[in-house]
């Protein structure tokens, strides 16, 4: 076996090999983002079973609400609200199952130790998971949106495209920032991730107003807008995608909600960083990275 030393010229000593420039550290982290995103992108192109579960099922539940709104002769915008909510379901499911619970699974699989033992920041792994997840979810969301809008004849009235696009992107950054934070939290908490993720699906659907304007929930809706990115993002997007429809009840205007999303993104990502550092120290001290290797 002849293996040539890699990474450019062979280093003269371990001390030299360990001495990385700032540029190299940044490059390492950027490549790690790409590396961790890769299995998600590749996986979504390789495994087609998600089509049934992540497009078919959300479409069915969306359809149920469409029929209810039609039966009670609700304003036509409400059907659009439901379709938009159905599309955003993909992102929330991805955040809960493939971000929040992910480090927990990674630990069980033995990957977490290897991530910690590699020279990159674990934040890069989280960013990679988020970008890979965005790729997966976006395709699902677009399909649900296009199919449901066509089937149920949803008519969008957009007056501020740039703001709508900005709000959409901010919703995603805030959502995935929350996912990064929850990933650290789940792992630190050490509880069974399965139950936690279950807890975060239906209740969040409800308080986020996935199938109805969140303002209808009164104080609960206002609270949801203040802390759950899905609630605030969805409400803002509905205001912008159905301009001229019923005015928002109990929620701020879209531009204020955009600012809330910016604040959420910053806070969640900072918290994720702080918690990851704390987690690593605590894990090393208490042996929480230790898994049964065999």
């Amino acid at each position, binding site marked *: 076996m002849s293996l040539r030393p*890699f990474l450019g010229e062979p280093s003269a*000593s371990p001390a030299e090999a360990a001495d990385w420039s700032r540029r190299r550290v940044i490059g390492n982290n950027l*490549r790690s983002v790409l590396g961790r995103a890769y299995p998600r992108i590749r996986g979504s192109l390789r495994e087609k079973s998600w089509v049934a579960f992540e497009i078919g099922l959300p479409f069915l539940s969306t359809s149920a609400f469409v029929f209810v709104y039609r039966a009670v002769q609700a304003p036509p915008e409400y059907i659009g609200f439901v379709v938009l909510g159905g599309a955003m379901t993909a992102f929330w499911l991805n955040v809960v199952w493939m971000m929040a619970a992910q480090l927990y699974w990674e630990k069980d699989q033995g990957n977490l130790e290897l991530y910690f*033992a590699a020279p990159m920041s674990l934040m890069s792994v989280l960013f990679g998971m988020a970008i890979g997840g965005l790729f997966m979810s976006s395709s699902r969301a677009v399909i649900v949106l296009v199919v449901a809008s066509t089937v149920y004849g949803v008519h969008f009235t957009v007056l501020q495209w740039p703001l709508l696009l900005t709000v959409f992107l901010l919703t995603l950054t805030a959502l995935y920032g929350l996912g990064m934070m929850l990933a650290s939290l789940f792992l630190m908490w050490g*509880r069974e991730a399965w139950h936690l993720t279950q807890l975060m699906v239906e209740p969040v659907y409800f308080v986020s107003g996935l199938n109805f304007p969140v303002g209808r929930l009164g104080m609960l809706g206002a609270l949801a807008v203040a802390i759950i990115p899905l609630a605030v993002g969805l409400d803002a997007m509905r205001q912008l995608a159905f301009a001229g429809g019923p005015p928002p009840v109990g929620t701020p205007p879209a531009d204020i909600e955009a600012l809330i999303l910016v604040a959420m993104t910053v806070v969640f990502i900072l918290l994720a960083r702080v918690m990851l550092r704390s987690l690593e120290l605590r894990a090393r001290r208490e042996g929480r990275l230790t*898994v049964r290797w065999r």
Partner: protein
Amino acid sequence: MPVTDSSSGLPGAASPLAVPAIQARGIRRVYAAKPEPVTALDGIDLEVAPGEFFGLLGPNGAGKTTLIKILTTLLLPSAGQARVFGFDIETETKKIRRIMNMVAGGEQSGYGILEVREQLWMFSQFYGIGVRDGWQRVDELIEAVGLGDQRKQRVSTLSTGQRQKMNFARGLLNDPWILFLDEPTLGLDVSAARSVRELIGAWKAAVPGRTVLLTTHYMAEADELCERIAIVDRGRILAIGSPAELKKRVQRESLFRLELDRLAGGPASLAGLPGVVSAVAATAEGSGAADEARQTVVVNLVLEDDAALGGVVVALDPLGAHIVALAKSEPSLEDVFVELVGRGFDDDHAPEPVLRPDETGHPDVAEAAR
């Protein structure tokens, strides 16, 4: 009594590799566990020179894996200090992680949906290797470990041996200065284990200064690969030396391999006879399939001198045992272990403490690990 190792006597001060590859002083690790804390390491002193192939040999639960986890920056010691190539394991973790890698036996890391080539490339990105260089390096390694035919195969479909070869390729992606191997041949068949051992040896020999720390409970593996070995038991190093040096410790006694058709009371019934230092059942490693087929009992005897053998032979008759075969044997590392500890590797399955979340969610319950 634990042994303190302060000098490996390997490369000199003029070398750029003058700093010890591993330097550990008074390492102690206690796990919070119920009903009482578990001491996994109890004052480990160790020095490994650059370029050395060093083995930690000990039974399950000896503390080998805990020590590896500390040296690979995954676990903090409860007390003591350790350095890897001069870098402190508590404060200079990033630097250590840039020059080391690790491979464990039975490792199931990665993602089954990826192909072998893709999986290795993903890991290459974690070490900052360029995108194109990563693919090239992966292809080189796949060929080097003999997985050329599996390069496009999904990870989930690999056999245990193939998977371990892939893990080994992963461990070499960043061309580490120090490679930690935790029972790398565990669960492999004879052929696959030999193949992995050859790979390790060839990789290490290719560049001076490459250092390997291997943990194993396979005596023959340690004997074949390691330049020096530390025998570890219950969190302490009992002896350090080259395999030859360690074997010399038991050379003064006479060693016999005694195969019997039956033995009422087991090897213990021979242990108390005059002139018998120890009598231990041979491990599976030492007894071949043919022995099992014949339903015989194989005992490794350590006697004060050859004359004591007569007493053993006489004592067999009342026990209803008949000799099938008798051979004088050279000392093995197992004999060294038996002399140091007073029992064989398989006589005590003390668990390696591993923290797993209990039903309340707190990972403070020690479980049997390996």
